[in-house]
């Protein structure tokens, strides 16, 4: 080896730098070409695509939105409309009372999470606080605190009749019947082989109960995707509903999550998963859509759904006022929209 060749001089170093730079440029461009050639992160090959289910045929939509306002408290759960068309929302640890334009009138604060609310014809407010019922008068004064009926009680729906108050207990999978003084009269819809009652299947705390004009109770048996009609003594009269992602059925694993009744006995049902509100005939035949999935942008995005500590993952609730307008409470967007039948 010639020693002179191995001596490092400045010129050789700078020439070497140029060659090194050339090598690096060649290598870098090869790498970037290879990277461009490989598929990027454009698509999720494992995506659960429900897009085709999120479109509603416009001919089925018979209602239009006339108003919309934000709720005042976080974590909304249930909505009720009082006899004077005031809006009662059970949210966080209180019942917020709003007028039909969304202005806050008053608030009934409670010590524990308020899960459901119902207003009687004379104005008494029945509030489902965690595992028991508390009653308040029109002005918001506390009247009574009823005792809890058990350890697993988890009230998620209330209906106030003339003589009775009905509380939907998701925890015990039944409907509790109280008189107006708070005495427990009986348990409805509980599993009972002798009375041939299959019982309610409640995978998530969305059990609701409403008193229909025909004197029967309507209970949403969410796990079986149907609405069941019970007498106040606990006999199952009839039921309707079937699971389906299509518009006539109830989607997902547990629906409908909310019930409301129009004065002629038609059912208003709310669903989660594919959030939508529909109207069924008094016997359970699908009639029309009040609001389709594509209108619930926030609610339909699963990214916005967080598993809450109260077990609710999204959902909707509905209530009907004296003019047969339907109020829809969006649990994710925390807003109320008022829907009126199209002319």
């Amino acid at each position, binding site marked *: 080896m010639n020693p002179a060749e191995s001596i490092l001089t400045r010129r050789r170093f700078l020439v070497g730098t140029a060659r090194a730079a050339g090598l690096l440029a060649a290598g870098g461009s090869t790498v970037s070409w290879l990277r461009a050639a490989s598929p990027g992160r454009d698509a999720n090959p494992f995506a659960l695509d429900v897009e085709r289910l999120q479109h509603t045929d416009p001919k089925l939509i018979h209602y239009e939105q006339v108003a919309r306002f934000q709720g005042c408290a976080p974590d909304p759960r249930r909505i009720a409309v009082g006899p004077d068309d005031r809006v009662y929302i059970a949210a966080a640890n209180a019942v917020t009372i709003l007028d039909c334009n969304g202005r806050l009138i008053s608030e009934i604060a409670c010590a524990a999470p308020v899960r459901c609310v119902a207003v009687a014809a004379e104005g008494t407010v029945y509030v489902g606080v965690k595992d028991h019922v508390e009653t308040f008068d029109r002005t918001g004064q506390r009247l009574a605190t009823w005792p809890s009926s058990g350890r697993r009680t988890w009230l998620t729906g209330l209906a106030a009749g003339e003589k009775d108050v009905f509380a939907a207990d998701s925890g015990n999978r039944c409907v509790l019947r109280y008189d107006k003084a708070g005495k427990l009269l009986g348990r409805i819809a509980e599993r009972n082989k002798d009375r041939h009652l299959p019982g309610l299947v409640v995978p998530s705390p969305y059990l609701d109960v409403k008193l229909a004009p025909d004197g029967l109770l309507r209970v949403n048996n969410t796990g*079986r*995707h149907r609405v069941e009609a019970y007498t106040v003594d606990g006999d199952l009269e009839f039921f309707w509903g079937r699971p389906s992602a299509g518009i006539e059925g109830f989607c*997902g694993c547990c629906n409908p999550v909310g019930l409301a009744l129009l004065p002629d006995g038609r059912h208003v049902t709310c669903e989660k*998963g594919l959030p939508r509100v529909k109207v069924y005939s008094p016997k359970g035949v699908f009639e029309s859509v009040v609001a389709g999935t594509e209108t619930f942008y926030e609610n339909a995005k*699963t990214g916005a759904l967080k*598993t809450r500590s109260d077990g609710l*993952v999204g959902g909707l609730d509905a209530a009907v006022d004296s003019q047969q307008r339907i109020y829809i409470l969006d649990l994710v967007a925390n807003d109320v929209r008022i829907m009126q039948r199209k002319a």
Partner: protein
Amino acid sequence: MNPGISKPSSVTRRQFLRDGARAAGLAGLGGLLGLVAERSTAKGTVWQIDPQKCVRCGNCALYCVLEQSAVKCVHAYALCGYCQLCTGYFEPDPNDLNTGAENCLCPTSAIKRTYIEDPYYEYTIDEQLCIGCAKCVEGCHRFGNGSLFLQVRHDRCLNCNECAIAKVCAGDAFRRVPADQPYLLKTDTF
């Protein structure tokens, strides 16, 4: 080394400079140690997914450096509804509620359905088959109670210095957790 031997002065100067530089290097290393050590932990850290932040983007199945991802679906049995029509198991609108592949969501048939009593069924994940794609997690989260969620399984994870999935996680759900409490289960927070 024999101290009696005299060396040329340039060598002693170089040696002195070198000794000085060595001392400075050691001091620098020690200083660095001091700066960093107060925030050091004796415990190691591992990677884990925060189930509340996961958006079920599907990257866990694709970006792990292992061929079969170390991320698997796990089931929080206390949160499950045990539904007959499980939306984490069945496609939306299945033809029939059976184990036919056409009806099932899971691309590798990793979720198993066992009958308990009417109308309850139990769903378990076979980790040998699960690829961590989050399709069942999406179905359970969207329609159901959200009892299925993804977790990094530490009998498989290599605990890379920089997790390749963490870098591309769409929900920014990955974080370092102490190695002695390496799981962020949903039942820990609910």
